[in-house]
């Protein structure tokens, strides 16, 4: 290394900065240049941030949810709980099969229904219905729910999420469009069935 010590170093070639006191024309132009770029950056930030926040803003303004049909009532015999699927209302051609969403439809007594989200209220795994023991069981962390969706055991803090439903022209409609999660529980019907 000592052999290399004699070589010129880039640091030695520094251009001395002008040592004039106060605001020179060049110093002011430099600062104006910074300011100008700051303005341009701020102007560009607004559309970028808006673009990034688009998914959240849309959810707040118009909402993602809408009424959609699960098909005729005959598919859901009284006293039984059946799996139904629907195409998510907010969908793009790129979504493929991921936009097909399942849900559990319980025909309570031929007149009233309960439509449960497939997602466990704990962490969103798909719950399975066991008609023999009248329980929903979750394969992830062992949450279990009774047939009316209320919590039976395991880590979930609450019952299954429910979609609002209505019956029109012999068809079952639910209000859906957004993946139900624990934090969004307020938007989805709570423990009780809700008829609109």
């Amino acid at each position, binding site marked *: 290394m000592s052999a290399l010590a004699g070589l010129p170093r880039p640091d030695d070639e520094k251009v001395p900065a002008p040592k004039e006191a106060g605001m020179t024309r060049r110093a002011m132009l430099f600062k104006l240049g910074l300011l100008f770029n700051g303005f341009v950056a701020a102007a560009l930030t607004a559309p970028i941030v808006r673009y990034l926040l688009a998914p959240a803003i849309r959810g707040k303004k118009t909402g993602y949810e809408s009424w959609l049909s699960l098909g005729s009532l005959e598919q859901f015999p009284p006293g039984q709980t059946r799996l139904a699927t629907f195409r998510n209302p907010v969908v793009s051609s790129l979504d493929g099969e991921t936009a097909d969403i399942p849900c559990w439809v319980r025909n309570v007594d031929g007149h009233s229904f309960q439509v449960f989200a497939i997602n466990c209220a704990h962490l969103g795994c798909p719950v399975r219905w066991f008609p023999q023991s009248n*329980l929903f069981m979750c394969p992830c962390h062992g949450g279990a729910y009774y047939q009316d969706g209320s919590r039976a055991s395991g880590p979930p803090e609450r019952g299954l999420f429910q979609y609002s439903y209505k019956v029109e022209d012999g068809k079952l409609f639910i209000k859906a469009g957004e993946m139900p999660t624990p934090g969004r529980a307020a938007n989805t019907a709570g423990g009780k069935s809700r008829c609109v």
Partner: protein
Amino acid sequence: MRVIERLGTWFDERLKLGTVLRETAGHPVPRETASWFYVFGSAALTVFLLQIVTGILLALIYVPSAGEAWNSLQLLNHTVPLGWFIRALHGWGSNFMLAIVLIHMVQVFLFGAYKFPRELTWIIGVFLLLVTLGMAFTGQVLRFDQDAYWGLGIGASIASRVPVVGPALVNLLLGGPIIAAATLSRFFALHVFLVPGLLIAFVGIHVLLVLKLGINEWPMPGRIVRKATYVREYQELTHKRGMAFVPYGVWKDLFFSGFILLAIAACALYFGPFGPGGQPDPTIIQTAPRPDFFFLWIYAVLSFLPPAAETPILLIGPIIAIVVLLALPFVAGEGEKSWRRRPIAVLTILVLAVAMGTLTHLGEHTPWSPVMNAWSSLPMPAKALQGRTALERRGALVFQAKQCRNCHSIGDAGGKRGPSLDDVALRLTDDQLIRQVIQGGGNMPAYGKNLSPAETTALVAFLKTLHPARQAPARDASRRVAFQTGGEESTSTQP
């Protein structure tokens, strides 16, 4: 040779890099650091380079579209020549990289390398750990199968629990209302552009700091780090008794890195690529989603936390862990470096290793999950049925048909969610059995509405037979008193 030399001179006159490179390579390091303990950092860097190369190769074929990603992975696995091997290299490279980063972190922690003046090196290292974990998680999403789909659901469910902004955060994470095309696209952008960018930047600063401050010297018990004297002492170690990193230290790094690359290739050849699992079709609900190996311990934690404490622990726990890691060099920036004189440090590592190992083991076996097909697929052991009455055998039928077996094992087969019932009759009396079946409790659902009185009678009659041959079942003491004072022992099934 003269041509090469002249070419070299030509470039160096213009690039002016020769001096810097020669100084960097020849910088003196403390003699003892040419050790097999000091090879993990460079190995992590080597594996990262492998990940960059294989990642770019995969991007030649992979389609980051929710409708096509799974098909393009199948194409890579089965149609593109050696596509499976590149996928396997990338997948095993990811596992090796995380493992080496963790080992590297444990090593520098136990060797006190985070102390003055290398606090910032440690902090950047913590960022590197987080970014590497981020790469592993986002990479797992790009392997767009059932596990990835429902794993995103778990991520969204956790994000939604953040107070106030939770629901908006879910929409931002998923890029829309559900897990769909926008979700995969943004995880692709994270995994391929944003997080690797951060990783490269942090690696650059990390290596630069190691070069500027010098490698941590081998810790000797009793050699105390003091801010006033450390730099001078380190100078002495390197300049008086040190030696040039190239070639005295570097050969071990080279051998270890090469060995690790070989090991990754061997794993890739022998075990093949990871997945993809089932199609990411949410309507196929016959699935038990599980995260990749390095996240299994979190998966286990999530099933053991009590419901009320889960959200605060999930949201605050990681922040505390990161703050502790970042604060470490400021709390313990001076003092003893050798792990021989730092029992708490050694204990911390041991406790963490045992805890993580246990949780990972549990995550692999998921004893908390009901075995979804136990009721329909497991045979009842013969000894539980031999010599039993018709009622007791009917009870065994009820036991299987009502899916009790999904959570309770008999003869070591069945779910482990609830206690094994091989000797349940020793623990519970008739009345307690009836109460437990009908009302549930202690994390068991109540079956009162799902069992007819006849079924309950049969089930309890069967459960009463479940005890070791030479041990009498539990009996209610008050029953005997009632029996002696004239009443008949009742076997009523009424609660």
